[in-house]
C-alpha cells in the first residue's frame, strides 16, 4: 500500500529496518519490523547470547518514526522528482528502554508528530512487542531536508 514510500528509503539490505507501514498520515505513522535471526549484529552482541543492540532499536524507531513520516511529509510539500535522494540526518533522542528484543521478534513502532518546520521533524515514538508490552519510548528529531539555517 505504501510501497512508493518504502522504495524511497535510502537504506538497503542489512540496514533497512522497515517491513510494513500499516498507518500513515500527516500526524503520524505506524509500522513494523521483524528482527532477522541471521542479522550481522547478533553474532557478536552477545557471543552465544544474541540480544538486539539498543542502537538497532533506536535505528528501527528512527527509520519508521522519522524517515518514513519525513518522506511522506516532504512528498506532500513539494513535487519531488523520483531521482531525488532522501538524505535524513538523525539529530537527537532521549530514548529509554524497557524490554529486551530477541532474534525473530516482531516489533511495532508508533510515531506521533510534534512538529515539522524548517526541515526538522520531531516526533514522540514508541516501540511495542507482539504481546503489547512497551519496548522503548522517546522524543526523536531529525532533519529530512537541507535547510539554510545550518550554515
Amino acid at each position, binding site marked *: 500500500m505504501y510501497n512508493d514510500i518504502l522504495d524511497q528509503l535510502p537504506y538497503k539490505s542489512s540496514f533497512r529496518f522497515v517491513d510494513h507501514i500499516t498507518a500513515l498520515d500527516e500526524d503520524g505513522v505506524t509500522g513494523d519490523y521483524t528482527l532477522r535471526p541471521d542479522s550481522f549484529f547478533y553474532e557478536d552482541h552477545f557471543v552465544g547470547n544474541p540480544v538486539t543492540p539498543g542502537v538497532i532499536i533506536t535505528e528501527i524507531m528512527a527509520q519508521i518514526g522519522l524517515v518514513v513520516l519525513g518522506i511522506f511529509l516532504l512528498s506532500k510539500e513539494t513535487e519531488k522528482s523520483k531521482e531525488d535522494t532522501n538524505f535524513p540526518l538523525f*539529530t537527537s533522542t532521549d530514548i529509554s528502554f524497557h524490554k529486551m528484543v530477541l532474534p525473530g521478534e516482531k516489533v511495532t513502532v508508533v510515531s506521533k508528530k510534534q512538529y515539522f518546520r524548517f526541515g526538522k521533524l520531531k516526533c514522540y515514538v514508541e516501540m511495542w512487542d507482539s504481546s503489547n508490552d512497551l519496548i522503548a519510548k522517546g522524543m526523536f528529531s531529525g532533519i529530512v531536508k537541507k535547510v539554510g*539555517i545550518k550554515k
Partner: protein
Amino acid sequence: MTREETLNELKKVIAPYTVNKEMLAGINDQTDLIRDLKINSANLVDIIIDAEAKYDIEIDYDSADRMTNVGSCLDVITEKINQR
C-alpha cells in the same frame, strides 16, 4: 521592549539548549549560536519555535535563515514584534 530587555528574554529561550551557562551569561550581538554556544543546529529550530511562543510572533523561513548569531536573532524578533 528595549534591546537589552529582549536580550535578557532571549537568554531564557536559549538556556535549555546550551550547557555553556557561563558563556550564555556574557553573550553579545556577535555570539554565534552554533560555534560559540555549541547549540546543535537542529535545536535552532526549537529556539525559533520557543521564541515564537514567547513573543507571540511568527518567524518565516527567510527570517529564520538569518538567525545565526545573537544580534541577528534580536533583529528578527524586534522586527516581528513591531509587525504585530
